[in-house]
């Protein structure tokens, strides 16, 4: 029973080095066919030409916070343009000693926005906080009380202006867009026509022309002596513009709703308002979160167009910095900084939207 022959000991070999680990991944993905290998080599050459020079320009040979004269002699990036001019880039024409005011106003706005993200906070008290916050922000920006110097709205500039125009633009445009979309679906011909005409006309013109009209043409129609604040006009133009695009996206979401949902709501005896508010809109708006976010991101970046009506948002203040003879020629550094700034804001909005979608997912 016990055999004198032992079973041969098994040899545990190592796998071939080119099939596993890093080399294995390279072999399987980058060099698996001849054309992939050629592409890999081409990309490697391109990266070799581009990346080391960029790194030495941006990080190795660069200066970070020196007076403008020091920048003339170096080969690398002159990042000093940013720290040296930061208060003008961010706050624009706000008087020097008063810059804590727009700074605090922005912090209050960001604080309220972050606080509102948490759905546990969505109670009546949230509305009260926002109301108080808005009043405080308005007072800080305009001044006139508690010994704060008055700063006219035309002087509001830089990042506070960008945030304000885009935030209030998005918040007002969204409900308006939803109403327009519902109106366009209406069976009443007057309402439907009104909504269609509005949407198609607004979508047919660029935002620049709307800003132009609001700033130049609109005052011509006003009676003598009555002026409407320029920032308010720009704000209204942005709201009206964004609302038209939101309306079409929401209409797409409404069309995606199955008739059965309407019929189930009807058969329970819900009226139109209840059906829309409780059943249809929660589902339709959830479906169109991705394209809605796209429109809101565009609205945020389109605030840079207010330069056309002589309002100084953060893009324009950066350009003004560059027109200073001391700092001309360092536009690359300035625009890279601006791009990073916009990117941080847009990425924050985008990642919030992804989290929102995930939290609303109810396991279909």
């Amino acid at each position, binding site marked *: 029973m016990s055999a004198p022959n032992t079973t041969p000991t098994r040899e545990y070999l190592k796998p071939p080095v080119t099939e596993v680990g890093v080399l294995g991944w390279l072999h399987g993905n980058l060099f698996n066919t001849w054309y992939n290998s050629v592409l890999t080599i081409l990309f490697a050459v391109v990266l070799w030409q581009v990346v080391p020079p960029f790194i030495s320009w941006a990080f190795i040979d660069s200066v970070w916070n020196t007076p403008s004269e020091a920048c003339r002699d170096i080969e690398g990036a002159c990042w000093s343009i940013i720290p040296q001019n930061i208060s003008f880039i961010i706050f624009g024409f706000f008087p020097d000693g008063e810059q804590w005011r727009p700074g605090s106003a922005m912090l209050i706005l960001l604080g309220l926005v972050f606080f509102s993200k948490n759905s546990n906070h969505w109670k009546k008290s949230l509305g009260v906080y926002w109301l108080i916050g808005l009043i405080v922000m308005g007072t800080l920006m305009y001044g006139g009380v508690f010994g704060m110097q008055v700063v006219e709205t035309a002087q509001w500039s830089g990042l506070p202006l960008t945030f304000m125009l885009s935030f209030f633009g998005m918040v007002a445009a969204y409900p308006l867009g939803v109403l327009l979309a519902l109106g366009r679906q209406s069976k009443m011909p007057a309402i439907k026509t009104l909504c269609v005409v509005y949407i198609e006309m607004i979508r047919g013109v660029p935002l620049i022309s709307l800003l132009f009209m609001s700033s130049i043409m609109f005052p011509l129609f006003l009676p003598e002596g009555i002026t409407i604040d320029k920032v308010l006009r720009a704000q209204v133009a942005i709201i009206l513009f964004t609302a038209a695009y939101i309306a079409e996206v929401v209409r797409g979401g409404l069309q995606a709703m199955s008739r059965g949902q309407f019929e189930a709501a009807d*058969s*329970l005896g819900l009226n139109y308002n209840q059906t829309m508010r409780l059943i249809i809109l929660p589902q339709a708006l959830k479906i169109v979160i991705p394209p809605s976010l796209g429109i809101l991101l565009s609205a945020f970046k389109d605030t840079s167009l207010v330069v056309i009506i002589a309002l100084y948002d953060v893009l324009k203040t950066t350009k003004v910095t560059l027109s200073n003879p001391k700092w001309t020629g360092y536009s690359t550094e300035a625009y890279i900084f601006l791009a990073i700034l916009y990117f941080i804001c847009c990425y924050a909005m985008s990642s919030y939207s992804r989290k929102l979608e995930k939290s609303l997912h109810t396991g279909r």
Partner: protein
Amino acid sequence: MNETEKQTAAKPDTAPIIEVNSMHKWYGDFHVLSDINLKVALGERIVICGPSGSGKSTLIRCINRLEEHQRGQIIVNGTELTNDIKNIEKVRAEVGMVFQHFNLFPHLTILENLTLGPIWVRKTPKKDADEMAMMYLEKVHIAEQALKFPGQLSGGQQQRVAIARSLCMKPEVMLFDEPTSALDPEMIKEVLDVMIDLAEEGMTMLVVTHEMGFAKSVADRVMFMDEGQVVEENNPHDFFDNPQNERTKLFLSQIL
């Protein structure tokens, strides 16, 4: 339930809960329902059968105004269905409907699906609505799923939830539009059992279905519709064993 045990809860001498008089309906030029006359007494169970396209679903959808009729009268519990939206909403709150494809609200939990109607239409306080909803969920044997979402339930479970949702509105009449046609055979039984329980408790029911076993055991009347008309109408025993009309005989031969 055999013939002797089946309670005929119908009281023919009281006013009918649903009255359809000479009703016609057109889709554009197409005459989909022709001269429909129907009286449903409180507590009656009626099964409507027929080939597809015969207008049976359209008929019951006219009763809760999901479809409009162009000629004739439909009177539900004393209220006539016209273009007056107040009448329509009044009727809809008293008539429950169960759909072929369930039509639950996917963004709400099962419990919220049930309490939505009572809270917003009948203005029931939330606590009372929750209690009532749990009671009906127990009744359809699905109480443990109360906090799940419809997408997490099987078809048979969803349909039972849909029945419970309609019951929460305490309707006078329940309409069923092919409630088991979208279900697997195993799930059909669990839904039919719930419907049989409902029938035994005296609920007035109009059921469009192909489940002839259900018709035989539960129905007070079976109506056969073809091409927009009521071709034959009889009690189940006579309907299945002794069909009068040629078209009825043809239909029965195809499905039995």
